């Protein structure tokens, strides 16, 4: 870029262009995270926080077997949700892009996918409770149909309910980027593959999936970060029976143990950053987006 610029003004211009976002990010993300990091090294007596340096919060978090359990549990939710949303997101987008030829229909059906998002997350989540409960609609349906004679307890207040809700809440975050990268695929590429004698399966694995990778990676980043950072869905849908990293953090915050919660938060940020880095390593999103 500098080769193109001649005067001082244009050398400054890229900086000016990023300045508004940079300032917002610094104020809204940088300062809070800085505060959390600072707090995680301070001491607390359960009500007040003392600015004295200590490693104790990290020692407590890192040596407790609980931390590992919490992270494994949260990762389990993230991976199951990721697999399910990729499957659903990919098939939905595939249908929209390659089966619906009419642009109007394509847009119409795509908007249909977003209808659930017109209501709030909380309502969409809570509406599962009367449906899945012991005396809920689904159990009554199954009992009425004679499939079971005792209501299924596993439907609600279980890991099943948590994952189901995640999938319901977060699938759109997968559909949108995959749809976007799929619709950029040049149809003549697929025709060329077909002319060259590729089977439909080969077209899918050799052409469509590699070219949708960016979308999948972007969607995966959304889904993974959303699940890793959640506590409300876990708490409500597991009936408080399961914990995630953030729900344990919330228990600490409620009891005013802010520094321990901060140490946990820093650890979570590190883990999530590593996961995002791993995703970015597999797919070079920047070069793909520039395509």
């Amino acid at each position, binding site marked *: 870029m500098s080769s193109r610029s001649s005067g001082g003004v244009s050398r400054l211009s890229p900086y000016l262009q990023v300045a508004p976002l940079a300032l917002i990010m610094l104020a809204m993300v940088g300062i809070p995270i800085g505060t959390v990091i600072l707090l995680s090294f301070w001491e607390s007596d*359960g*009500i*007040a926080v003392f600015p004295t340096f200590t490693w104790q919060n990290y020692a*407590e978090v890192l040596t*407790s*077997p*609980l931390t590992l*359990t*919490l992270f494994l*549990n949260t990762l389990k939710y993230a991976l199951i949700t990721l697999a399910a949303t990729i499957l659903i997101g990919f098939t939905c987008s595939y249908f929209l892009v390659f089966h619906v030829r009419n642009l109007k229909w394509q847009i119409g059906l795509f908007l249909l996918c977003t209808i659930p998002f017109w209501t709030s997350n909380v309502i969409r989540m809570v509406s599962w*409770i*009367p449906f899945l*409960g*012991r*005396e*809920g609609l689904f159990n009554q349906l199954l009992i009425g149909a004679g499939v079971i004679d005792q209501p299924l*307890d596993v439907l*609600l*207040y279980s890991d099943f309910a948590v994952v189901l809700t995640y999938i319901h809440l977060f699938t759109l975050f997968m559909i949108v980027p995959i749809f976007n990268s799929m619709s950029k695929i040049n149809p003549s590429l697929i025709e060329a593959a077909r002319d060259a004698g590729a089977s439909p399966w080969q077209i899918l694995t050799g052409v469509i999936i590699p070219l949708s990778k960016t979308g999948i990676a972007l969607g995966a980043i959304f889904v993974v970060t959303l699940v890793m950072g959640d506590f409300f869905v876990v*708490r*409500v849908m597991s*009936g*408080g*029976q*399961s*914990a995630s990293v953030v*729900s*344990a953090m919330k*228990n*600490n915050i*409620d*009891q*005013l*143990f802010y520094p*321990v919660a901060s140490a946990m938060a820093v650890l979570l940020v590190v883990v999530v950053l590593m996961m995002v880095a791993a995703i970015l390593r597999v797919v070079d999103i920047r070069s793909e987006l520039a395509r």
Partner: protein
Amino acid sequence: MTQSGTQSGKKTPADGLTRRRFLQTSAATAGAAAGAGVLGAPMIWAQELKDVTLNWAGPSYSVIADIAEKASADLGFNIVPQTVESTALMAKVVNQPETIDIADLEFWAMQKVWRSGQVQPVDVAKIANWGMMTPLMREGKNFDGSDLSRQGTMPAEVMYIAAAGDTEFAASPTELATIMPTIYNADTVGIRSDLIGRPIESWAELFNPEFKGKTALVNIPQIGIMDAAMALEAMGEVTYGDKGNMTTEEIDLTINRLIELKKAGQFRAFWSTFDESVNLMAGGEVVIQSMWSPAVTAVKSRGIQCTYQGLKEGYRGWGLGMGLMGHLDGIKRDAGYAFLNWYLTGWQGAFIARQGYYSSVPDTAKANLSANELGYWYEGKAATEDILDPYGAVMDKAGAMRDGGSFEARMGNVGCWNTVMDEERYMVQRWNEFVSA
């Protein structure tokens, strides 16, 4: 507005114009109204009581808009209610004290909050009805004059200080109170009597395998672990030195046992909010669980048979008091004292009685209840006509009696009090382990 509506309905070219003119007109009207408000405002009095605004913060079961409204009307100055749950309120009191004037604090919270120095003591001499206050709160004495259970945070233990500025509590009553006691109750388990179909008499039933998958605990560590301790003790498995202040060994023992029970499938859920506990009970997910009194009322008013079952090992007591924030002085402090005094005159006591709580000055509350309400809420008598909740909904039918009986029978049988343990940090960590097990 009607006129502009009918005109725009005609889809004439003047449509947009009409709407614009309508907007202009209404803006002008609003402006005029605002102007009139300013111009019509009375001259500004210097420091008059009626210009004072008090921010009154506390949990939803104590800071109720209807009470603030009535108090504002009676006292002539403005009381603004602010709902903040107890844990968040503690943080607010310590970190943002200037955002609150009067704080409704749980007694157990005093152990954490008082030493921050952000709350000023209440001068007992300035509270007219202090002498009429029940000895339960004022002196920590039971109805028969014996000492109340000191397991956990018994209110009188944290209610007095010897001199202004003290961070330690005084052992016996003094002229300076940390907070002024307001409401309190005896908590126990809620049961679906229709689904259980037999008498429930002991905390041990909470962990009875008969109710496997149909019990719940509250997911507030310091309260949940106490309910569990009541049950384990009733089962004869453990005898605690002080359930309200467990040693690390006792915490380990309790949590390990809870984890075993959880893995065996004893629990259906751990609830965190009032409505969760109501829905668990009303939906038949749970037949026996830790519960608050108004939650039982809420289940009942849906026409579902739910009992707040008194148990032979006793109740878990709790109480709230009003604190004057440290920054109050001059006329604002006078207003604060006026509000505190109003609080004990009975209207609030009667209001709160209808959701099952007791007033620290029962006599004035009783005077504001009808004979039927008094019999039902305080005296353990059968209702002579329908019992209404504070908002006028029927919550119990004529002939029904309050679960657990009279004021004396319930409050006289408190086995332990809501509290904060010395080993709290360790306890919360182990509780997290239990929840994620």
